[in-house]
């Protein structure tokens, strides 16, 4: 279908994902996927702890001592996120993943992949990346960098803005 023939649904959905907690990331991705499947243009801004959901590897070379410490202490990526409650040193996420698998609920890593397939735009907060010493090569592919102005630009043109 040609671009000018299609009708965009009312506005779009802009999500600010600040948290790196398993449950909040899961909720944000569920809304993103549902919205994308309903025809909304969806953008997720990953800020501060939310960036951990986009990490695919840790790199220590070329980082300051403090940045290395942050890299070592952050979860390695979307597979290693802690739950906001009942984490119990990592037992919590394993418990929830088991329950979710039994009940046919995809876990965050699958949701992230599904979101990407549905055309959800991923934007990483450049300042958070800089503060935490996370470089673009440590994130999954197809992530754009952005700042507050780009968040506000997209959010102000959306009809739904959510913070997780």
């Amino acid at each position, binding site marked *: *279908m040609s*671009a000018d023939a299609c*009708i*965009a649904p009312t506005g779009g959905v802009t999500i600010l994902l600040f948290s790196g907690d398993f449950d909040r990331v899961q909720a944000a991705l569920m809304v993103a*996927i*549902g919205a994308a*499947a*309903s025809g909304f243009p969806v953008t997720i801004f990953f800020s501060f702890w939310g960036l951990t959901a986009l990490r695919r590897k840790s790199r220590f070379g070329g980082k300051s001592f403090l940045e290395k410490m942050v890299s070592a202490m952050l979860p390695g990526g979307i597979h290693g996120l802690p739950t906001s409650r009942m984490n119990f040193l990592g037992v919590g996420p394993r418990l929830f993943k088991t329950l979710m698998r039994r*009940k046919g609920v995809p876990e965050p890593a699958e949701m992230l992949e599904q979101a990407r397939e549905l055309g959800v735009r991923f934007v990483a907060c450049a300042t958070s990346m800089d503060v935490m010493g996370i470089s673009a090569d440590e994130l999954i592919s197809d992530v754009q960098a952005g700042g507050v102005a780009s968040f506000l630009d997209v959010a102000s043109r959306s009809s739904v803005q959510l913070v997780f």
Partner: protein
Amino acid sequence: MPQTELDCKGMRCPMPIVKISLAMKHLQAGDRLAVEATDPAFHPDLVAWTRQLGHTLVEFQAGAVQRAVVVKGDRLVC
């Protein structure tokens, strides 16, 4: 008119809507999509989804396995 079958049994929200929306992309306006699902939120989600995208829910059977038939609308959505 052609009817496509889609099995969403065992899937939880939002996956049935995701699968339906992907299946719809291959259909023409007026084509029918029959869906079976077990998700408890399937009916309200389907009603909202069809309204959002201009499709029509023409049949719905409740039960342990819910069955719905959706006719694709002629609105083109980006």
